């Protein structure tokens, strides 16, 4: 999944670009780029299921930030409730990893919105490196569960409204 990983690498580069006093421009672009790394990562995973490869970029354009956030919120609520029932160990592992992905997506999206549009806010390197590390962990979590039905269903709900 090179593009998303390259974006995350670029975010990390921006966060460390100025050794002593990081510029706000570098930090804000890092926050935004880190979010987009996860955004494109999940879209790539979802569209990869579409048999006709030439149509995948077109399908990718159907994903919306708000819809994806709503899907993540719904899944997160379901998973938190499920984890409260003390599920069997195999379910527990899948649920925890998927919960981590959905949760980091929601939180990173709000950070990205502030980084892109809120000029009143001051960013720090600690904030940005924390976000990048959490997204890196979300990538790893996804790789553990990507073939599970629950994870694959989640990808569909990122695109399609659950009625």
């Amino acid at each position, binding site marked *: 999944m090179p593009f998303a990983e390259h974006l995350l690498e670029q975010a990390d580069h921006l966060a460390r670009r100025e050794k002593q006093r990081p510029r706000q421009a570098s930090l804000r672009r890092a926050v935004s780029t880190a979010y987009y790394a996860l955004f494109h990562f999940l879209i790539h995973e979802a569209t990869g299921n579409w048999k006709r490869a030439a149509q995948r970029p077109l399908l990718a354009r159907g994903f919306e930030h*708000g819809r994806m*956030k709503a899907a993540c*919120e719904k899944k997160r*609520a379901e998973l*938190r*409730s499920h984890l409260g029932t003390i599920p069997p160990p195999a379910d527990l592992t899948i649920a925890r990893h998927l919960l*981590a992905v959905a*949760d980091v997506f*929601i*939180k990173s*999206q*709000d*950070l990205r*919105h*502030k980084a892109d549009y809120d000029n009143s806010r*001051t960013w*720090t*390197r*600690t*904030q940005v*490196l*924390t976000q990048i*590390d*959490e997204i*890196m*962990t979300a990538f790893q979590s996804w790789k553990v569960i990507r073939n599970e039905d629950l994870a694959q269903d989640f990808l569909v709900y990122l695109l399609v409204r659950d009625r």
Partner: protein
Amino acid sequence: MFVPGVIAVRAVHIGLVQKKEIAAAVERAAPTLAPDVVRVQYRFGEDWTGDSSIYFGIILSDHAASQEKRLGEIAQRVETTLEDAINVEELGLQSYFNFRSQSEQANLKDPNWP
């Protein structure tokens, strides 16, 4: 040992009783996050989609913040602890977390953060 302090900054859309319960829950949870966390601040607001939200400002010790490979792990522990403590799901709140080191916060002199 330095016990994490707690500051509630400003609030919207949350009932007074809930605010008091949240304040008490954060007060109880914050010391369990030491020594990585030296202060927990929060405010209520709305996120970019208009959902009622609680924004936490977490001040990490300089030692914790310098351990870059542990930042994600520290953040996860902080987030889970505070979300469980205030039961965000039941309250219907989105929770968001912002992290700074002690030195960064001291340099910025930004009392209204997060």
